[in-house]
């Protein structure tokens, strides 16, 4: 379990050093992107249109914040991760086409995402689910927002973060998925759990 301080944009080489169980603290620009954002981004890419931001080397955060506007400026109030499994359907294509290097969420992602992380050089990390106040603390400011028509949770929020973490590497670029390894153990424990209840 190694600890890293990374700054966006990150290189492929930096990302490929990371292994499951490692901890990352991230500084620089992070974009929020959830289900609807992924869908729209992939539609625009398919039509050959330009995206509002350049994701190459950057980090996306599966997160829909609480925001407020103070003196005409957006402010993040609470910013913990959303469940990433819903985004599994989009992430392979998004990693391939956007050049994103770090994905931050919670709850885990599947085989296709792990495949893309290996093939294109990216990692999937989790920030502690529910820790919205802690997440907001790391966000220095919002420098932009796109696609607000999707609603506050689904818009792309452009955030400057400082030492955002701890982020735990769950899928690395070597084909490892931490949660798959835990799941194998839990599958073995399932029989024992049934037995405890005489099922």
């Amino acid at each position: 379990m190694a600890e890293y301080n990374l700054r966006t944009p990150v290189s492929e080489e930096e990302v490929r050093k990371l292994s499951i169980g490692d901890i990352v603290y991230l500084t620089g620009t992070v974009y929020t992107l959830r289900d609807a954002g992924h869908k729209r981004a992939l539609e625009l890419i398919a039509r050959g249109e330009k995206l509002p931001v350049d994701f190459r080397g950057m980090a996306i955060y599966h997160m829909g914040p609480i925001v407020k506007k103070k003196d005409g400026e957006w402010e993040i109030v609470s910013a913990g991760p959303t469940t990433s499994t819903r985004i599994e359907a989009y992430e392979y294509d998004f990693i391939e086409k956007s050049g994103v290097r770090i994905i931050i969420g919670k709850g885990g992602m599947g085989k296709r995402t792990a495949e893309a992380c290996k093939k294109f050089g990216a990692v999937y990390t989790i920030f502690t689910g529910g820790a919205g106040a802690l997440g907001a603390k790391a966000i220095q400011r919002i420098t932009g927002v796109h696609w607000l028509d999707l609603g506050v949770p689904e818009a792309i929020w452009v955030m400057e973060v400082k030492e955002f973490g701890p982020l735990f590497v769950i899928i690395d670029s070597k084909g490892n998925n931490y949660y798959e390894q835990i799941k194998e153990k839990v599958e073995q424990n399932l029989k024992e759990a049934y037995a405890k209840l005489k099922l």
Partner: protein
Amino acid sequence: MVGASISPQEFEEKIKQATIKLLMAAAVYLPRDVKNALEEAYKKEKGELQKKMLRAILDNLEIAEKEKRPLCQDTGAILFYVKVGEKFPYMGSLPRILREATAKATELIPLRPNVVDVITGKNTGNNVGNYLPWIDWEVVPNSDEAEITVMLKGGGSEAVSMMKVLTPAEGLEGALKAAIDTAFDAGPRTCPPNIIALGIGATGEIAVKMAKRGLLRPVGERHPDPKIAEIEKKLLDAVNSLGWGVHGTGSGPTALDVHIEIAERHPATYAISVMVFCWAARRATMKITADGKVTYPSHSFLEEEV
């Protein structure tokens, strides 16, 4: 002191302000019972990674309280459980007051706007829409008070909720298996350690309502019927033997507690529901007397500041 001389408008405004405070209490301050259980888990934890995660959870609670920010950004579907005395003078006004307070609280606290049109996908922007906030009613005979509990139910944990009508032959064994299977399938997605509730009854909606009642019961409190309390303990032990652990990372508790709530069933049905609450199990309760006195039994430290 508020006396009988308070005007209806003043009284309604008072309930509205008290409800805004109730929503703030729920969003910012995790109930003491849940917090205790998380602190306990932190003390016991041996895993390095899991200890860091539990530390992040406890740090998060501290920041939320200090800065009065919602501890989790998903301030949930807003669910009110109203126990209203038949003689409470403003029963009929409560739905309107609760909706107005929700919209105002969304702006003031603020909460995340989480009400989305089913067909168009458009967000209403103020947490108010058809049947949201949800209001669950129970009328209490011979009472002139109202007790309102709010639950902020995040999407991640609600996503694994299940309801099924089993056959009586499947019965209790089937119900317990469903609870285990739900925790097994949920894995890291529901922000464990969780509170898991099993509801049993005659029909689907009764089972769901029983399960939700289970989520409202404080962590560590057993069912008053010793037979059911015993099953709860065994089920909690079985769920934790799965070993998902803190955020599904393989160490620490999978569940902080398991609650079972039952209604009687129909001869031909055995309806069950399993509901899961994330560790951010946000709920708060207030009581309003007929003369307008407001107390917060779940967050009594808030009674000082009005």
